[in-house]
């Protein structure tokens, strides 16, 4: 790893100004929040923006605010440590709080922000390597090369969605507030993400993620279960986000299951979801829903741990995540 390459550091005072700066410098610009993802990438010369637009001075981005309709809005610059210990989050949104606590280490969570984690770059063991290493494989299409080593015949990049917060946030159908020079808009859950290792976001590059808006509590329960080798700093190689809505009788009215770490976006386990709706969450049903999740868990050989094993244990993890929604 080298020292950071030279770049111009911008500290805009509003989100709109940040968006304008980004737009002005186009591909040369990137936003930085906590810097825990961007700066190491810059040191490895993966990402080489010459203009880094910091969001640290944008007011309001560190606020956590209960909206009049009962939803909870979390500013994009709120640190992961703050959220991990936030009493309201722990009480009302324990699934998300748990997912956040599972991110990396205390030191990284002190610096890292929720916005940064939601927009975390996709990862791949062919990509997250030094420049010299990537030279030896003649690079890959995500940076400097032409091929995807995970699937050489494929026209697309298969880098992996590796954020712990995304699967559960998508399952919960939380909303994202985006600000650009053209104004503010919100998108819901899955709509922010795309199934592509390079263009993994639907937002325009200059759009600033300003807030994460969590749905009103009541009638649903969410959970997150992470698979990784070590219970610290490892990225998920499978991250199951589940959210189950039930009626007064305990019958499932809606279920969302998202598989992180298994593809370039948080993949919906649609068959499993279908099995749940209209039924009580019995142990048998949970096991069946788990089994049905093996198919969408289309793990690739570009993360830690054996690719087939990750797929084979996906049913166990999905079932356990669902059990936690009971």
């Amino acid at each position, binding site marked *: *790893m*080298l*020292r950071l*390459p030279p770049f111009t550091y911008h500290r805009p005072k509003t989100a709109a100004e940040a968006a304008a700066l980004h737009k002005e410098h186009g591909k040369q610009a990137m936003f930085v929040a906590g810097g825990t993802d961007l700066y190491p990438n810059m040191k490895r010369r993966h990402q080489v923006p010459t203009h880094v637009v910091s969001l640290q001075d944008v007011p309001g981005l560190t606020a956590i605010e209960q909206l009049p309709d009962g939803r909870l809005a979390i500013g994009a610059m709120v640190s992961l440590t703050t959220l991990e210990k936030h009493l309201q989050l722990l009480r009302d949104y324990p699934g998300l709080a748990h997912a956040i606590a599972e991110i990396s280490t205390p030191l990284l969570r002190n610096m890292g922000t929720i916005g940064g984690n939601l927009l975390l770059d996709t990862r791949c*063991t*062919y990509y*997250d*390597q*030094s420049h*010299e*290493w990537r*030279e*030896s*494989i003649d690079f890959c299409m995500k940076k400097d090369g032409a*091929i995807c*080593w995970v699937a*050489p015949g494929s026209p697309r990049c298969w880098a992996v969605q590796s954020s712990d917060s995304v699967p559960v946030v998508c399952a919960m159908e939380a909303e994202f507030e985006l600000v650009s020079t053209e104004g503010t808009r919100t998108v819901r859950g899955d709509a922010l993400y795309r199934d592509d290792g390079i263009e993994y976001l639907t937002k325009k590059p200059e759009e600033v993620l300003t807030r994460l808006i969590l749905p009103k509590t009541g009638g649903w329960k969410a959970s997150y279960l992470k698979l990784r*080798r*070590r*219970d*610290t*700093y*490892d990225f998920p190689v499978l991250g199951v986000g589940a959210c189950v809505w039930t009626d007064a009788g305990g019958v499932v009215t809606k279920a969302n299951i998202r598989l992180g770490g298994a593809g370039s976006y948080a993949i919906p386990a649609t068959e499993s979801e279908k099995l749940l709706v209209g039924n009580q969450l019995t142990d048998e049903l949970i096991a069946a829903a788990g089994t049905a999740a093996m198919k969408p868990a289309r793990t690739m050989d570009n993360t*830690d*741990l*054996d690719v087939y*094993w990750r797929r*084979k*244990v996906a049913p*166990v993890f999905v079932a356990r995540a669902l059990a936690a929604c009971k």
Partner: protein
Amino acid sequence: MVLDDPAVTTPQARTDAPWRHDAKKEDLNVIGKPIRKVDARSKVAGLTRFADDLSMPRMLHMKLLRSTVAHAEIVSIDTSKAAALKGVKGILTGKDLPIPFGILPVSQDEHALCPDKVRFVGDPVVAIAATEEEIAWEACRLVEVEYRELRTIGGIHEGAANDEPRLHDYGVRGNIHRLENLEFGDLQDGFAKAAHVREDTFFFEGNTHLPMEQHASLAHFDKDGKLTIWSSTQTPHYLHRALARTLHPLPAHHIRVIACPNGGGFGGKSDPFNHEIAAAKMAMLTGRPVKIALTREEVFWCHRGRHPVLMRSKIGVNKTGRITALDFHSYLDGGAYGSYGTASTFYTGALQTVTYAVDNYHFRGARFFTNKAPCGPKRGHGTPQPRFALEVQLDKIACDLGIDPAQIRLDNLAPRDSLTANFLRIGSMGLGQCIEKVVAGSGWKERRGKQERTKDGRIRGLGLACSSYLSGAGLPIYWNGLPHSGVQLQLDRSGLVTVFCGSTDIGQGSDSVLTWIVGEVLGVDPLGMRVVTSDTDLTPVDLGSYSSRVTVMTGNAAMQAAERARDIVAKGVADKLGVPASRLVFADSRVYDAEDPKKGMTFAEAVVCAEAKFGTIGTVGSYTPPKSAAKFRGGGVGPSPSYSYSATVVEVEVDPDTGIYRVPKVWMAHDIGRALNAAIAMGQIEGSVYMGLGEAMMEEMVYRDRTHKGNRIFVHKIPSMLEYKSPSALEMPEVVSYVVEDYDKNGPFGAKEVGQGPLLPMMPAVANAIYDAVGVRVDEIPVSFEKVFAALQAKKEGKEARFGPSNGPDGVPEVDFGDSLKIKTPWQGGDGTAWNEPKREKKAAK
């Protein structure tokens, strides 16, 4: 400065006094006390200056351009664009450093910069020095290297199957670097006596040292023609020799090597390295200080870590489980260079006999050259792999016969004060006591085989394993009859004692060991002493911090120097006080009459008395290990002044649905002879548990092997701290350490090693514990979650409940080992020579 008057050193003092192994604990003031390390406060305060902390005015930064292909001939190198980059001050290629080097005289197969051929992704090709590190890096990107690619040799089976292309033009044949074939006793008879015979195949994947400190060096060539290099090295003496060789005609006495405090070594800094030689040459070329600090990835390229080893072991036992014969094959994936590989190969067969008595023993070992980062010595050097195989196999035997795995080991213990089948001389032997400690501590007898469930549904299991390790190699790396370690003492009028020694503190505390031993003998406070170590200009040669040799060897040398100093001082004080020298006591920084303790003086006053009588006070001590009983070819690897012993019980909790397991607790007993400092010894035990656990559970040097458009890409899969998985603090189990003391007469105050031994039983104990919990065998290291899961699946499907290399004929490669060297065991009347040893060829003597 040095007074070494034979008259003051009686023969008795030379032979008896230095060991003092049977000194009573209550008679010792320093030895055995939990004194802090001499360098502890600087380390904790961040004030220790490691190699990368050094800088000099006008210093240049060097970077290496490394091969991007696994195996190729170099067609051309064009450095013209790099040379034109502003800030670039020097460029070196292979032709500037044409003399090969290597740690062992038998494998001088490395170049600082590859002259004609590259042998793995990461092999250095060009060195560039510039005013800034980034400029040197950019300049490397401007170099154009044209390669003609050769077929890649990707592992053991490929090395055995492909004689061409050869990585090196030396070795046995094709890509076989070494073949060893040693037969002790009568195997046929041994197996004939067996009531039960097992044959198993095991694989131990390679792994690396992962020291916190990345290698760094700073070289300076002054205007008087003297070269100084500061480096993170465990072996300054061997680096000194390699520099003298490769920088010829620069004379050896113009080269000064200073080993900086090492931020961890574990064997990974024991070879002379290409970057050290290139930095030295670059300093000579540019006339400016040159520094190189390796990246983490480059540390993976330096490697010299654990060899991947495939093993087939056939063992015979009688009805009661007593071993009658062992036939052991090992196949080592050596990587691209020789390094310590010759020794590593022998070590995969050397120490099986030191824990358990093996009456008849046949060892065959083969090492292959492959296009990977070179393997070498890592903590346990060559012995953890066979230890894993043997300890798992014994566990299986115990299960087959319905014997308690602890009992089968107790029944097979090698006797103390004996010669093994392969002529290793065992002295003290506390393994039995170690086993009893961990069996009692863990509740082994009550808890084993119970498959208790944890609250979260995991299944508990206990596994036991044992091991032994040497306290220093009996022979040096290069043949010579000189001492292995030297210590020089200087006594100042102020009472200061300065210890000069070539040994290198790699964090294990060797600087402190010197002060404890000298402090004990001279009765002075270790923390008030000065230690000058690992500087080839100032300190007597010590061979280096490897093979767990330092405490025993420098310790004995220090003891001898201290005894000599004590004699001199005692004579001076005796005259002054009118008391016989033999009655004087050295303690509490005083020298006094044993019969009238008030009659005496401070140590400083005592030094003044002696200096007045004899002149400047300085003494030397040195140590040469006892002669080995093994006289056959290959018998040089394995002998040691003494052997340490370890036994462990590991507890696991396995999730039967996924194969995921954790290790909550470990009981580890280690026979250290005598703990010079039990607190530091326990630190070594816990560190070994940690490192062993990493090897057992997750660490592996694995390669990406892809072919695209006819080109094979073969590169280390995960050369980073994040993706090369080693345990974090959260995976670290609770460790219960037992320090067992079975005093050894060859050790200073009876001490033996502790730095490596306790690592060895961890891996088999984890595998055995998994079996105890869920009834499946993983005959392969690491015992990763996937493998446990695969074995569980196999069990579920009614197949063999095992994961591991094939036990069939395809499991190991076909290798013609040739005729064995046949050696009669001591109990057959053998004298340590092979009765059929072929005449040595002339060229070996060259």
